[in-house]
């Protein structure tokens, strides 16, 4: 009894914080989405579903699909870059690991906007990369590296890569080395060990990193605006414009609410994957004799469920 009331006391501040600054605003956004923009940009409180009908317009669906495509590409690129890095860091000596992680985090010491502007300096037609390539004679005409999808994806990957490295690193470094050794002892070549043991067991880290990049990318509006030159419209820009340019808060709220719904589903999917990984690890520890069998089995199951 005493310990449970102490637990409540410990949980209360965090829970209260979330309720106050996360749940209540979300509920309010939900409410707002049922009203209508006033004549002069305020809110007319007449309950209706018009905003949801408006949101079904193909133009918004198109923007959503574009955003999913851009955020999805950024996620895949980020994981392909982050996994080998995280793997290499986790295999290096302890002391060096701290140094490497420090360097991974270093970009966060400067402002997001400044880092994004730095990319403009690098990528524009008169920028460092184009000038450099021209001066060594690789190209004769500057390349269009900026104000397109390529630039937006580059910017998103660059900005969120550290999170993915950290998420994957933490899950690789928690992996019991004996599991890998067992696989090798049983005669599996290194690539097979990686594909069938390491990778599946670190899937929760990959999932966490992936959700992180995806969720942050799909809601991002600064990068498409600056590196995309406003020529790409993502959901984040759309919502931003409804609130700040059209002063149509109710419609902005509707779009936000739909986006929040999508994010929730993703987070839920990620939680399921993480949970599964933890159960596997837990059980693997308990039955260490049959651990290899078990992970093989669960691997097969997983392969089936992925297919």
């Amino acid at each position, binding site marked *: 009894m005493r310990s449970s009331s102490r637990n409540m006391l410990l949980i209360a501040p965090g829970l209260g914080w979330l309720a106050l600054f996360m749940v209540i*605003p979300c*509920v*309010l*956004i939900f*409410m*707002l989405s*049922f*009203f209508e*923009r006033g*004549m*002069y*940009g*305020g*809110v007319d*409180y007449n*309950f209706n579903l018009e905003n949801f009908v408006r949101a079904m317009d193909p*133009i*918004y669906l*198109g*923007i959503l699909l*574009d955003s999913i495509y851009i955020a999805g590409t950024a996620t895949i690129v980020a994981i392909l870059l982050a996994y080998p890095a995280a793997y290499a860091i986790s295999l290096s000596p302890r002391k060096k690991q701290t140094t490497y992680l420090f360097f991974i985090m270093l970009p966060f010491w400067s402002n997001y906007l400044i880092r994004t502007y730095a990319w403009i300096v690098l990528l*524009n*037609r*008169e920028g460092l990369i184009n000038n450099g390539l021209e001066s060594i004679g690789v190209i004769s005409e500057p390349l*269009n590296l*900026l*104000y397109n999808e390529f630039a937006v994806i580059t910017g998103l990957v660059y900005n969120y890569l550290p999170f993915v490295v950290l998420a994957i690193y933490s899950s690789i470094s928690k992996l019991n080395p004996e599991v890998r050794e067992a696989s090798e002892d049983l005669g599996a070549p290194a690539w097979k060990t990686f594909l069938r043991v390491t990778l599946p067991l670190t899937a929760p880290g990959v999932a966490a990193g992936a959700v992180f990049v995806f969720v942050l990318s799909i809601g991002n509006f600064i990068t498409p605006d600056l590196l995309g*030159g*406003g*020529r790409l*419209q993502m959901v984040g*820009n*759309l919502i931003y*414009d*409804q*609130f*700040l*340019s*059209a*002063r*149509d*808060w109710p419609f902005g709220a509707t779009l936000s609410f739909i986006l929040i719904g999508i994010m929730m589903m993703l987070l839920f999917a990620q939680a399921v994957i993480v949970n599964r990984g933890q159960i596997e690890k837990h059980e693997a520890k308990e039955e260490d004799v049959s651990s290899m069998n078990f992970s093989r089995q669960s691997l097969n199951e997983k392969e089936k469920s992925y297919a």
Partner: protein
Amino acid sequence: MKLLKSLGATALMLSASFSAQTTWADKLVISNWDGYMPADMVERFKKETGIDAEVALHATNEEIMGKVVASKGKGYDVLFVSSPFVEVLNKLDLIAKLDHKLIPNTKNLYSQANELNYDKGNKVSMPYAWGTTGLCYRADLMDEPTSWNDLLKPNDALKGKVTMLSTDRWLMAAGFLSLGYSVNSTNPSEIAEAKQVLKSAKKSILAYDDATFYAKLVSGEATMTHAWDGWCNYGTAENPNIKYVIPKEGTDMYVDSMVITKNSKMKKEAHAFINYVLSKEIGVWIVNNVMYKTPNEAAMSSIDPAMMKAYPNLAMSPDEILKQEQLRDLGKTQKAYTKAVTEILASN
């Protein structure tokens, strides 16, 4: 239903109270665009009048509108907004009637500045700066543009070398003007036509840029930009080959004005601030610092001729400016503009 309504209202109030500046009762709160007022203006004002003031910043008209509409103007005393928003704030009854006796410096204004159609007689607003939207270009890299179509249908040499404003009213204005329509058009077929023109124009532009276009001209990334005259001067300051022109079809004119919130508890001090801004010395100092034209005749006539020569658009006469159409609030049609702009920006 009632619960929903009050919850919705709470949402607005909450967001407003987070954004509004909580302030001491004896401090005047002024909201202006960043960099639109000399940095030490408030200090000078305090030195001269003894009135303490602080500056809150807003990035766009829409941002300050959102805050003020939600908080009913509480927490702010003086706002700097563009003319269509003066109209809206007035219709929403959020701004106060001005007491001209407390602003003797109105005598410094051009007579035309008293005839602005969104607020004839300056009953609720005082003009701070005015100007036009047009084309800002590199005179060393191209011939002088003459038409909006030079921007919307650029020749091959200019393809991928032009930028446009993406703020809905100005983006749409470029389309309307190229077709000979009003910048305040509410006709659905005209809106659709302008949208089509702007969609095809998108294929030849480098980027949409409302904030750094002059830097793109300086670096040579862009050769011509859709620009506000005052901002074009920032480019001219770095490269005298950067020039400004109003296309032959005409353009819109903007007036950025000062208003006092109805809920201000320091109306007398707020009037004193507006009066201070309208003095001749401060007017000169504003023009020299932010390089925008002011409707302050006393100030404009004392600007150094060398400055006018270096930045020719500063010399534009009030009649030339007022010849252009003024942007008006669109009311219900705003939704159609927003949708059109979304379609343009999302098109391939």
